[in-house]
Protein backbone atom coordinates (compact mmCIF):
# COMPACT_ATOMS: atom_id res chain seq x y z
CA UNK A 1 0.00 0.00 0.00
CA UNK A 2 1.14 3.53 -0.69
CA UNK A 3 0.44 6.66 1.28
CA UNK A 4 1.00 10.26 0.32
CA UNK A 5 1.37 12.82 3.08
CA UNK A 6 0.84 16.49 2.28
CA UNK A 7 2.37 18.84 4.84
CA UNK A 8 1.43 22.50 4.64
CA UNK A 9 2.33 25.62 6.59
CA UNK A 10 -0.71 26.51 8.68
CA UNK A 11 -2.79 29.56 7.82
CA UNK A 12 -1.19 32.69 9.18
CA UNK A 13 2.32 31.21 9.26
CA UNK A 14 4.73 33.32 7.25
CA UNK A 15 5.73 31.40 4.12
CA UNK A 16 8.49 33.36 2.38
CA UNK A 17 9.02 30.61 -0.20
CA UNK A 18 5.37 30.82 -1.20
CA UNK A 19 5.61 34.61 -1.37
CA UNK A 20 8.66 34.43 -3.63
CA UNK A 21 6.98 31.91 -5.94
CA UNK A 22 3.78 34.00 -6.07
CA UNK A 23 5.79 37.07 -7.11
CA UNK A 24 7.67 35.06 -9.72
CA UNK A 25 4.42 33.70 -11.16
CA UNK A 26 3.03 37.24 -11.31
CA UNK A 27 6.14 38.39 -13.17
CA UNK A 28 5.41 35.65 -15.71
CA UNK A 29 1.95 37.13 -16.21
CA UNK A 30 -0.09 34.63 -14.21
CA UNK A 31 -2.92 36.00 -12.08
CA UNK A 32 -2.04 34.40 -8.75
CA UNK A 33 -3.66 35.55 -5.52
CA UNK A 34 -1.58 33.51 -3.13
CA UNK A 35 0.94 30.69 -3.19
CA UNK A 36 1.88 28.45 -0.28
CA UNK A 37 4.63 25.87 -0.33
CA UNK A 38 4.47 22.65 1.60
CA UNK A 39 6.00 19.21 1.33
CA UNK A 40 4.99 15.85 -0.13
CA UNK A 41 6.11 12.59 1.46
CA UNK A 42 5.40 9.39 -0.49
CA UNK A 43 5.48 6.28 1.64
CA UNK A 44 5.38 2.59 0.86
CA UNK A 45 3.69 0.64 3.64
CA UNK A 46 3.68 -3.01 4.56
CA UNK A 47 0.33 -2.83 6.29
CA UNK A 48 -2.52 -4.18 4.14
CA UNK A 49 -5.35 -2.82 6.28
CA UNK A 50 -6.31 0.74 5.25
CA UNK A 51 -7.58 1.81 8.68
CA UNK A 52 -4.48 0.51 10.43
CA UNK A 53 -2.25 2.07 7.78
CA UNK A 54 -3.92 5.43 8.14
CA UNK A 55 -3.56 5.33 11.91
CA UNK A 56 0.11 4.44 11.51
CA UNK A 57 0.76 7.32 9.10
CA UNK A 58 -1.03 9.70 11.46
CA UNK A 59 1.40 8.70 14.18
CA UNK A 60 4.29 9.30 11.76
CA UNK A 61 2.96 12.80 11.08
CA UNK A 62 2.52 13.61 14.75
CA UNK A 63 5.95 12.35 15.72
CA UNK A 64 8.11 13.47 12.81
CA UNK A 65 6.64 14.43 9.45
CA UNK A 66 4.83 17.57 10.59
CA UNK A 67 5.41 20.09 13.37
CA UNK A 68 1.90 20.66 14.76
CA UNK A 69 2.70 24.20 15.87
CA UNK A 70 3.30 25.43 12.33
CA UNK A 71 2.13 22.72 9.93
CA UNK A 72 -1.02 20.80 9.07
CA UNK A 73 -1.05 17.46 7.30
CA UNK A 74 -3.31 15.44 5.05
CA UNK A 75 -3.02 11.72 4.31
CA UNK A 76 -4.02 10.07 1.04
CA UNK A 77 -4.02 6.26 0.86
CA UNK A 78 -3.61 4.33 -2.36
CA UNK A 79 -4.77 0.79 -1.67
CA UNK A 80 -4.00 -0.49 -5.19
Amino acid at each position, binding site marked *: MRATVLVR*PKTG*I*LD*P*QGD*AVRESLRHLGFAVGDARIG*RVVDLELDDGDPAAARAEVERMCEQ*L*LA*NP*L*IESFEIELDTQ
Partner: protein
Amino acid sequence: MTGREPRPTIAVVVFPGSNDDRDAAWALRALGADAQLVWHGKDELPPESSAVVLPGGFSYGDYLRCGAIARFSPVMRAVEAFADGGGPVLGICNGFQVLCEAGLLPGALRPNASLSFVCRDVAVRVEEAAAPFTSRCEPGGRLVIPVKHGEGCWYAPPELVDDLDRAGRIVLRYEPGENPNGATADVAGVTNEQGNVMGLMPHPEHAVDPMLGSGDGALILASLVDAARDRMPATV
Protein backbone atom coordinates in the same frame (compact mmCIF):
# COMPACT_ATOMS: atom_id res chain seq x y z
CA MET B 1 39.06 34.00 37.47
CA THR B 2 41.93 32.70 39.52
CA GLY B 3 42.69 29.71 37.38
CA ARG B 4 42.41 27.62 40.51
CA GLU B 5 38.66 27.36 40.27
CA PRO B 6 37.46 23.86 39.46
CA ARG B 7 36.77 23.22 35.78
CA PRO B 8 33.22 21.92 35.37
CA THR B 9 32.56 19.38 32.65
CA ILE B 10 30.32 20.67 29.89
CA ALA B 11 29.14 18.20 27.27
CA VAL B 12 29.06 19.55 23.71
CA VAL B 13 26.94 17.25 21.56
CA VAL B 14 28.17 16.47 18.06
CA PHE B 15 25.46 15.60 15.53
CA PRO B 16 26.29 14.58 11.96
CA GLY B 17 26.41 18.00 10.34
CA SER B 18 27.27 20.00 13.46
CA ASN B 19 29.98 22.49 12.55
CA ASP B 20 30.30 24.80 15.55
CA ASP B 21 30.96 22.05 18.08
CA ARG B 22 34.71 22.65 18.21
CA ASP B 23 34.31 26.42 18.38
CA ALA B 24 31.90 26.01 21.29
CA ALA B 25 34.28 23.61 23.05
CA TRP B 26 37.22 25.94 22.44
CA ALA B 27 35.32 28.93 23.85
CA LEU B 28 34.09 26.99 26.91
CA ARG B 29 37.62 25.76 27.63
CA ALA B 30 38.96 29.31 27.33
CA LEU B 31 36.33 30.36 29.85
CA GLY B 32 37.30 27.75 32.42
CA ALA B 33 35.29 24.64 31.57
CA ASP B 34 36.37 21.14 30.68
CA ALA B 35 34.38 20.84 27.44
CA GLN B 36 33.90 17.31 26.15
CA LEU B 37 32.61 16.49 22.69
CA VAL B 38 29.90 13.82 22.85
CA TRP B 39 28.85 11.93 19.71
CA HIS B 40 25.09 11.93 19.13
CA GLY B 41 24.99 8.12 18.99
CA LYS B 42 25.93 7.81 22.66
CA ASP B 43 23.18 6.83 25.08
CA GLU B 44 24.69 8.77 27.94
CA LEU B 45 26.41 12.02 28.74
CA PRO B 46 29.71 11.94 30.61
CA PRO B 47 28.55 11.28 34.21
CA GLU B 48 30.36 14.34 35.55
CA SER B 49 28.58 16.69 33.08
CA SER B 50 27.19 19.74 34.80
CA ALA B 51 25.95 21.51 31.65
CA VAL B 52 25.17 20.61 28.04
CA VAL B 53 25.59 22.62 24.84
CA LEU B 54 23.88 21.72 21.56
CA PRO B 55 25.99 23.52 18.97
CA GLY B 56 25.29 25.16 15.66
CA GLY B 57 25.45 23.48 12.30
CA PHE B 58 23.22 21.58 9.94
CA SER B 59 22.39 18.35 11.73
CA TYR B 60 21.21 15.65 9.33
CA GLY B 61 21.53 18.16 6.51
CA ASP B 62 18.54 20.09 7.87
CA TYR B 63 16.40 17.46 6.11
CA LEU B 64 12.63 17.61 6.69
CA ARG B 65 12.85 20.53 9.14
CA CYS B 66 15.92 21.89 10.90
CA GLY B 67 16.48 19.82 14.03
CA ALA B 68 13.57 17.46 13.35
CA ILE B 69 15.70 14.35 12.90
CA ALA B 70 18.47 15.20 15.38
CA ARG B 71 15.92 15.30 18.19
CA PHE B 72 15.62 11.52 17.91
CA SER B 73 19.36 10.90 18.31
CA PRO B 74 20.13 8.46 21.14
CA VAL B 75 21.97 11.15 23.10
CA MET B 76 18.87 13.36 23.14
CA ARG B 77 17.17 11.03 25.61
CA ALA B 78 20.06 11.65 27.97
CA VAL B 79 19.89 15.40 27.28
CA GLU B 80 16.15 15.40 28.04
CA ALA B 81 16.73 13.52 31.29
CA PHE B 82 19.52 15.94 32.20
CA ALA B 83 17.20 18.90 31.54
CA ASP B 84 14.38 17.26 33.53
CA GLY B 85 16.76 17.05 36.45
CA GLY B 86 17.36 20.82 36.28
CA GLY B 87 20.68 20.67 34.44
CA PRO B 88 21.45 23.70 32.27
CA VAL B 89 21.16 23.05 28.52
CA LEU B 90 22.09 25.71 25.97
CA GLY B 91 21.13 25.34 22.29
CA ILE B 92 22.88 27.60 19.83
CA CYS B 93 21.36 28.12 16.36
CA ASN B 94 20.86 24.52 15.12
CA GLY B 95 20.89 23.49 18.77
CA PHE B 96 18.01 25.93 19.37
CA GLN B 97 16.15 24.34 16.45
CA VAL B 98 16.73 20.86 17.90
CA LEU B 99 15.44 21.93 21.34
CA CYS B 100 12.28 23.45 19.81
CA GLU B 101 11.65 20.32 17.75
CA ALA B 102 12.21 18.19 20.86
CA GLY B 103 9.57 20.19 22.70
CA LEU B 104 12.10 21.33 25.33
CA LEU B 105 11.63 24.94 24.21
CA PRO B 106 8.53 26.79 22.98
CA GLY B 107 7.98 27.84 19.39
CA ALA B 108 9.46 26.76 16.08
CA LEU B 109 12.08 28.11 13.70
CA ARG B 110 11.02 28.89 10.14
CA PRO B 111 12.92 30.07 7.05
CA ASN B 112 14.10 33.67 7.34
CA ALA B 113 11.47 36.15 6.16
CA SER B 114 13.98 37.49 3.63
CA LEU B 115 14.63 33.96 2.30
CA SER B 116 18.32 34.92 2.44
CA PHE B 117 20.95 33.24 4.54
CA VAL B 118 22.06 35.96 6.94
CA CYS B 119 25.60 36.16 8.26
CA ARG B 120 26.47 39.28 10.23
CA ASP B 121 26.81 40.81 13.67
CA VAL B 122 23.52 41.70 15.34
CA ALA B 123 22.79 43.66 18.49
CA VAL B 124 20.58 41.98 21.07
CA ARG B 125 19.17 43.32 24.31
CA VAL B 126 19.41 41.31 27.52
CA GLU B 127 15.82 41.18 28.79
CA GLU B 128 16.59 38.91 31.73
CA ALA B 129 19.97 38.85 33.45
CA ALA B 130 19.85 35.70 35.54
CA ALA B 131 21.47 32.32 36.03
CA PRO B 132 22.24 30.07 34.36
CA PHE B 133 22.72 31.82 31.00
CA THR B 134 22.91 35.57 31.50
CA SER B 135 24.04 36.10 35.10
CA ARG B 136 27.15 37.94 33.89
CA CYS B 137 25.12 40.36 31.74
CA GLU B 138 23.64 43.69 32.72
CA PRO B 139 19.84 43.81 32.65
CA GLY B 140 18.91 45.78 29.52
CA GLY B 141 22.49 45.50 28.31
CA ARG B 142 23.38 45.39 24.63
CA LEU B 143 25.39 42.50 23.23
CA VAL B 144 26.84 42.32 19.74
CA ILE B 145 26.99 38.70 18.59
CA PRO B 146 27.05 37.25 15.07
CA VAL B 147 24.23 35.26 13.51
CA LYS B 148 24.58 32.92 10.54
CA HIS B 149 21.47 31.04 9.55
CA GLY B 150 18.85 30.50 6.89
CA GLU B 151 16.07 29.36 9.21
CA GLY B 152 16.10 31.49 12.33
CA CYS B 153 12.67 33.04 12.17
CA TRP B 154 11.34 32.05 15.56
CA TYR B 155 7.58 31.71 15.57
CA ALA B 156 5.05 31.31 18.35
CA PRO B 157 1.37 32.28 18.41
CA PRO B 158 0.67 35.70 19.99
CA GLU B 159 -0.89 34.35 23.18
CA LEU B 160 2.16 32.15 23.78
CA VAL B 161 4.49 35.11 23.18
CA ASP B 162 2.52 37.12 25.78
CA ASP B 163 2.79 34.28 28.29
CA LEU B 164 6.53 33.94 27.70
CA ASP B 165 7.02 37.67 28.03
CA ARG B 166 5.10 37.84 31.28
CA ALA B 167 7.03 34.90 32.68
CA GLY B 168 10.38 36.52 31.82
CA ARG B 169 11.27 33.70 29.46
CA ILE B 170 12.23 35.91 26.53
CA VAL B 171 15.84 36.38 27.56
CA LEU B 172 17.27 38.02 24.45
CA ARG B 173 15.62 40.30 21.89
CA TYR B 174 17.05 41.78 18.72
CA GLU B 175 17.45 45.53 19.14
CA PRO B 176 15.03 47.68 17.09
CA GLY B 177 15.92 47.43 13.42
CA GLU B 178 18.29 44.52 14.03
CA ASN B 179 15.93 41.55 13.62
CA PRO B 180 17.77 39.53 10.95
CA ASN B 181 15.13 36.89 10.23
CA GLY B 182 11.61 38.15 10.94
CA ALA B 183 11.37 36.44 14.33
CA THR B 184 8.10 37.02 16.17
CA ALA B 185 8.40 39.84 18.74
CA ASP B 186 12.12 40.18 17.89
CA VAL B 187 12.86 37.08 19.94
CA ALA B 188 16.51 36.02 19.75
CA GLY B 189 16.57 33.68 22.77
CA VAL B 190 14.00 31.94 25.00
CA THR B 191 14.00 29.57 27.94
CA ASN B 192 11.81 26.71 29.10
CA GLU B 193 9.42 27.16 32.00
CA GLN B 194 11.99 26.15 34.62
CA GLY B 195 14.59 28.46 33.11
CA ASN B 196 17.29 25.79 32.81
CA VAL B 197 17.03 25.27 29.03
CA MET B 198 17.72 28.13 26.64
CA GLY B 199 18.03 28.46 22.90
CA LEU B 200 19.33 31.40 20.91
CA MET B 201 20.06 32.07 17.25
CA PRO B 202 23.16 34.28 17.71
CA HIS B 203 26.47 32.45 18.20
CA PRO B 204 28.11 33.43 21.50
CA GLU B 205 31.00 31.04 20.76
CA HIS B 206 31.98 33.24 17.82
CA ALA B 207 32.19 36.34 20.00
CA VAL B 208 34.57 35.51 22.83
CA ASP B 209 37.54 37.65 21.82
CA PRO B 210 37.35 41.39 21.08
CA MET B 211 40.16 40.90 18.57
CA LEU B 212 37.65 39.05 16.38
CA GLY B 213 35.02 41.78 16.60
CA SER B 214 33.25 41.24 19.91
CA GLY B 215 33.75 39.54 23.22
CA ASP B 216 30.10 39.83 24.23
CA GLY B 217 29.32 36.16 23.65
CA ALA B 218 31.73 35.30 26.44
CA LEU B 219 29.27 36.84 28.92
CA ILE B 220 26.69 34.19 28.03
CA LEU B 221 29.10 31.26 27.92
CA ALA B 222 30.88 32.35 31.12
CA SER B 223 27.47 32.57 32.82
CA LEU B 224 26.92 28.95 31.79
CA VAL B 225 30.37 27.96 33.08
CA ASP B 226 29.53 29.65 36.42
CA ALA B 227 26.25 27.74 36.61
CA ALA B 228 27.99 24.49 35.70
CA ARG B 229 30.61 25.07 38.40
CA ASP B 230 27.84 25.65 40.96
CA ARG B 231 26.42 22.24 40.08
CA MET B 232 29.69 20.38 40.59
CA PRO B 233 29.68 17.94 43.47
CA ALA B 234 31.47 19.52 46.40
CA THR B 235 35.02 18.30 46.79
CA VAL B 236 36.38 18.78 50.27
